[in-house]
């Protein structure tokens, strides 16, 4: 006995004393790491053993993760607009609110002299600078270098100080003197490539046509004095060309003195440290007064009120949606919708993961039992399975990265964004991804870890754990949730598409087939002076049935509105505001707009140009009269102060689609706003007509690129938001159903395998394969039914809410819900029945023998 004891204690020195020592936290972490390294092998081996289920798990997760990544990029892009400028908290745009001409207007821009006044008289700022869009041809500056001729949409006259307010890094040239002289231009890198194709651009020349509204357009050579980085996706102020302000001054010498000039001038200030925006705004008040006076003197249209306010730079994208906004404002609604959609996919994917892990846990139960007898504590095992789940999540992340760029391209096209793959490198994005990774890995791993680590070695090793779905309430709940989400998504998708079909199918009140649209972007004054002659030239082309010129064509925002005052003088008190389309005599017949009262414009009447308005029915209502009684009434417009008589009322037509009621409109023959020509084509001779039209274009607009569009295509864009959402929902619900289907399929396949013996016994006892299949499917039927009951009311509420945004909408009926439910149900049943039949048909003897 003695001998034995000695022996034993001698052999046991090391490890025993090791283990009994109390451990610090750091050491514990170290052991967990070691353990993880050890269990990595087992993770991978057991994954390989259950390849199918592993692939389903990873696919579901990866899809969810990839969607989330895209949405994270999108959300970060949307919410970090203009935060990359140093000290962006001190940078503001000066906007104003004014009351005049019978309306209240808010503008993102202000008058030219303000910047100089701030710099010289107010102080308080580090820098002030203006960005002024080229005047008449704001978005279509014709730029040429030899044969390379393009319309530039993002060209600006810029004060040189803009470089010390906004972060616009120079690649060549320098910010200090690049825009000092007239006729100099700084271009973006991609613009440089476009015109110079690899040649160093500095010192070379671009020919730029500008329309200063002081006569004919001017074409001059500009010297390239700088190349800057392309504007990132997350700035409201995107630029391809910055023209020196000195150039503009040579043509508009009063730019820095004239307080009454109304072309938009976006003014940015960078306040000194510790200057409060509210205090600064107060200092601007005297200048508001100057503008009011200048307007009173000049146009005779008194401005009743004018208040400046400061818009923080970083808030512009989400927080500012003014009529003269540089870029359409972001919509927080889409941030929510996209985030929600990604969350749903992530939920379905993670549910799969949890579900399949829990299902597979039965195969791991023996391992758990053994590990516990070997001294593993429950904590050790929880860590092991959490570690495994993190490893699988990591694999899913890598897989997600693999198809991220594809998905991103798809998303960009769908959502109309320009998000770059490289944006992943931002610290904020990386941090969010890390959080997502941990959250997903832990939350998806926690339930399986808890289930698995709870196994008692005694019962496991005695084979008392029964596999399969019995009693796993949590697992059923997960499947229920998964299918509820799937049904919800399908209902939403169906409703969105049905609503789209509905509004697209509704009569718009005008004819949009076979219309060729030519936009006059250059030489507008020539066009306005000679439009009758130009039109008749185009009419000579073969197959052109009708031609008309106007300020707006369907699918575009209206150019503006008229404040109309009854009678022959204009005052602001009782004026009514209507949107305006300025047209020619042929507009109404060209578009096939129906008249409900009075007559259309007629050349024969001789004086329609000077004396006639036409309104639509909504317009008549706005003026407070019925279509019959509005005829013959006289109105004066704030715009040109002409008094004209309403000679006709048209039926309502929907130039902006069927989302909203028809706008109150007035049609007026007024040259100064004309900018588009509409040509009616003969469908059989389109290419012939196009060739001739191009020839005519060349004659009238030599050197101007011939660009055209077809109305029905362009008009389709009015529903682009709804279509984007429909497509997105379609994608998400398709993906969701696919993941849910695969998950269910995998889980059932596995359950069947585990229940082979039971099924074998039932078969031996005389059950038919059908009855066995039924037995196996029954529980899933009730689950999917329950999911339907949960999802349908929620989907109903969500879709009703969404439909509120439409003036004309469908009533989502029983059929939509029934269809969504049945479709999902059929897919789920397919997953179950496929498996059930297969395993029911197996030869029972094989199953029993294999035990």
């Amino acid at each position, binding site marked *: 006995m003695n001998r034995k004891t000695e*022996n*034993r204690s001698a*052999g*046991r020195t090391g*490890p025993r004393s*090791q283990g009994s020592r109390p451990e610090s936290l750091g050491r514990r972490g170290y052991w967990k790491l070691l353990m993880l390294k050890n269990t990595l092998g087992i993770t991978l*081996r057991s994954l390989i053993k259950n390849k199918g289920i592993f692939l389903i798990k990873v696919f579901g997760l990866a899809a969810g993760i990839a969607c989330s990544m895209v949405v994270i990029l999108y959300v970060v892009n949307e919410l970090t607009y203009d935060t990359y400028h140093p000290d962006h908290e001190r940078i503001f745009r000066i906007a104003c609110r004014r009351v005049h001409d019978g309306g209240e207007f808010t503008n993102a821009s202000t008058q030219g002299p303000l910047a100089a006044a701030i710099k010289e008289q107010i102080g308080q700022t580090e820098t002030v600078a203006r960005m002024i869009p080229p005047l008449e041809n704001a978005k279509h500056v014709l730029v040429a270098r030899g044969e390379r001729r393009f319309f530039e949409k993002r060209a600006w006259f810029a004060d040189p100080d803009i470089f010390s307010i906004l972060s616009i890094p120079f690649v060549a040239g320098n910010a200090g003197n690049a825009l000092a002289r007239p006729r100099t231009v700084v271009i973006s890198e991609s613009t440089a490539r476009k015109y110079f194709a690899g040649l160093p651009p500095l010192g070379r020349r671009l020919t730029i046509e500008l329309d200063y509204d002081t006569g004919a357009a001017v074409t001059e050579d500009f010297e390239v004095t700088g190349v800057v980085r392309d504007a990132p996706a997350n700035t409201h102020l995107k630029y391809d060309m910055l023209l020196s302000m000195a150039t503009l001054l040579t043509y508009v010498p009063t730019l820095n003195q004239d307080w009454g000039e109304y072309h938009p001038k976006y003014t940015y200030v960078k306040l000194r440290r510790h200057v409060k925006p509210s205090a600064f705004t107060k200092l601007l008040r005297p200048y508001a007064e100057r503008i009011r006076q200048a307007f009173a003197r000049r146009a005779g249209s008194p401005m009743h009120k004018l208040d400046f306010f400061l818009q923080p730079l970083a808030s512009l994208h989400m927080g500012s949606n003014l009529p003269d906004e540089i870029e359409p404002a972001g919509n927080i609604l889409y941030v929510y919708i996209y985030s929600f959609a990604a969350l749903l996919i992530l939920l379905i994917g993670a549910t799969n993961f949890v579900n399949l892990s829990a299902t597979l846990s039965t195969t791991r139960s023996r391992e758990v039992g053994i590990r516990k*007898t070997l*001294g593993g504590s*429950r904590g050790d095992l929880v860590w092991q399975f959490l570690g495994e789940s993190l490893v699988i999540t990591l694999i899913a992340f890598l897989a997600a990265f693999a198809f991220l760029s594809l998905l991103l391209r798809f998303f960009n096209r769908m959502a109309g964004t320009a998000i770059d793959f490289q944006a992943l490198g931002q610290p904020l994005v990386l941090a969010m991804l890390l959080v997502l990774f941990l959250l997903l890995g832990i939350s998806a791993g926690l339930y399986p870890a808890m289930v698995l680590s709870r196994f008692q070695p005694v019962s496991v090793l005695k084979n008392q754990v029964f596999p399969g779905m019995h009693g796993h309430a949590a697992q059923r709940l997960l499947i229920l949730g998964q299918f509820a989400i799937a049904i919800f998504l399908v209902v939403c998708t169906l409703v969105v598409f049905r609503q789209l079909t509905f509004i697209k199918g509704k009569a718009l009140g005008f004819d949009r087939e076979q219309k060729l649209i030519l936009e006059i972007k250059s030489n507008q004054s020539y066009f306005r002076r000679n439009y009758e002659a130009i039109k008749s030239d185009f009419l000579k082309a073969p197959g052109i049935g009708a031609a008309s010129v106007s300020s707006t064509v369907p699918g575009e925002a209206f150019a503006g509105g008229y404040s109309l005052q009854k009678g022959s003088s204009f005052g602001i008190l009782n004026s009514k505001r209507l949107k305006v389309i300025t047209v020619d005599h042929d507009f109404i017949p060209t578009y096939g707009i129906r008249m409900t009262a009075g007559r259309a414009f007629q050349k024969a009447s001789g004086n329609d140009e000077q004396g006639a308005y036409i309104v639509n029915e909504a317009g008549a209502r706005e003026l407070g009269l019925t279509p019959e009684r509005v005829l013959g009434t006289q109105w004066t417009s704030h715009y040109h102060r002409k008094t004209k008589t309403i000679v006709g009322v048209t039926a309502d037509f929907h130039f902006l689609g069927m989302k909203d009621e028809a706008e109150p409109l007035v049609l007026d023959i007024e040259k100064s706003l004309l900018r588009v020509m509409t040509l009616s084509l003969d469908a059989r001779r389109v290419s012939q007509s196009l060739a001739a039209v191009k020839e005519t274009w060349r004659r009238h607009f030599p050197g101007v690129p011939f660009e055209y569009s077809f109305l029905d295509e362009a008009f389709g864009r009015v529903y682009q938001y709804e279509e984007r959402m429909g497509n997105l929902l379609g994608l998400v619900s398709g993906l969701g159903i696919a993941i849910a289907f695969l998950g269910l399929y995998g889980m059932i396949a596995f359950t069947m395998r585990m229940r082979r013996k039971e099924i074998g016994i039932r078969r031996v006892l005389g059950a038919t394969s059908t009855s066995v299949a039924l037995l196996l499917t029954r529980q899933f039927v009730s689950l999917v039914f329950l999911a339907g009951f949960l999802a349908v009311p929620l989907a109903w509420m969500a879709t009703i809410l969404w439909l509120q945004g439409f003036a004309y909408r469908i009533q989502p009926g029983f059929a939509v819900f029934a269809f969504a439910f049945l479709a999902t149900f059929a897919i789920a049943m397919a997953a179950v029945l496929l498996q059930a039949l297969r395993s029911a048909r197996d030869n029972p003897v094989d199953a029993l023998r294999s035990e």
Partner: protein
Amino acid sequence: MIRLRGITKYYANAFVKTFVLRNIDLDVKEGEFLTIMGPSGAGKSTLLYILGMLDEACEGEYFFCGQAVHELNEKKRTQLHQQNIGFVFQSYHLIDELTVYENLETPLLYKKVKPDERKSLVADALDRFRIVAKKDLFPNQLSGGQQQLVAVARAVIIQPRLILADEPTGNLNSPQGEEIMALFKKLNCEGTTIIQVTHSEKNASHSDRVIHLLDGWMNNGEKSALPGENPGTGKRKKKHPEGT
């Protein structure tokens, strides 16, 4: 080393208590080789699991090396078990997805043995049980006897004071079984306490003492022996093969 007093185990549902163990008193000295025998369902394995701290008794006291196991929380109990007890099972219970080497290493990981020490312990065990050549194989690539050899090596590697064996030779043919029993004998001689559950008289003959369980009741070695089974009837049996 082990002292059980009034250990009782039952499974209760609404109406019936099914007793597995009834009022077991048992003392095991350090260095003893004890055999528990009895027919199927007698409660042998349950007793073994309670001894191994994998299962808890419903009533009664369990002292292990002076510590009141029935009063410890799960964590303490796991620690005690981890440091002192090795298990050997009838169906080996190796982890299928791990190699022989990794299987041996696992208990050391739970015991938090340092890497270099762990490596040398595993190497020693591989050497001692002459399975070095098999170290990279998976369990299903081994014969039953080899698997059980690995299982014993795994039980021994933490240098436990107590080895619990649940029908260790039940799935083996007789030469393999003999080999394992010889191994146990050797370990016992080196000082390890061994408690085994077995149906086999031959295996029981290797032990110092045999107790019998029937329907959860325990008969002490002296009283228990069925005629002809245990002629020695003593606590210390002689070490020679017994015939029936």
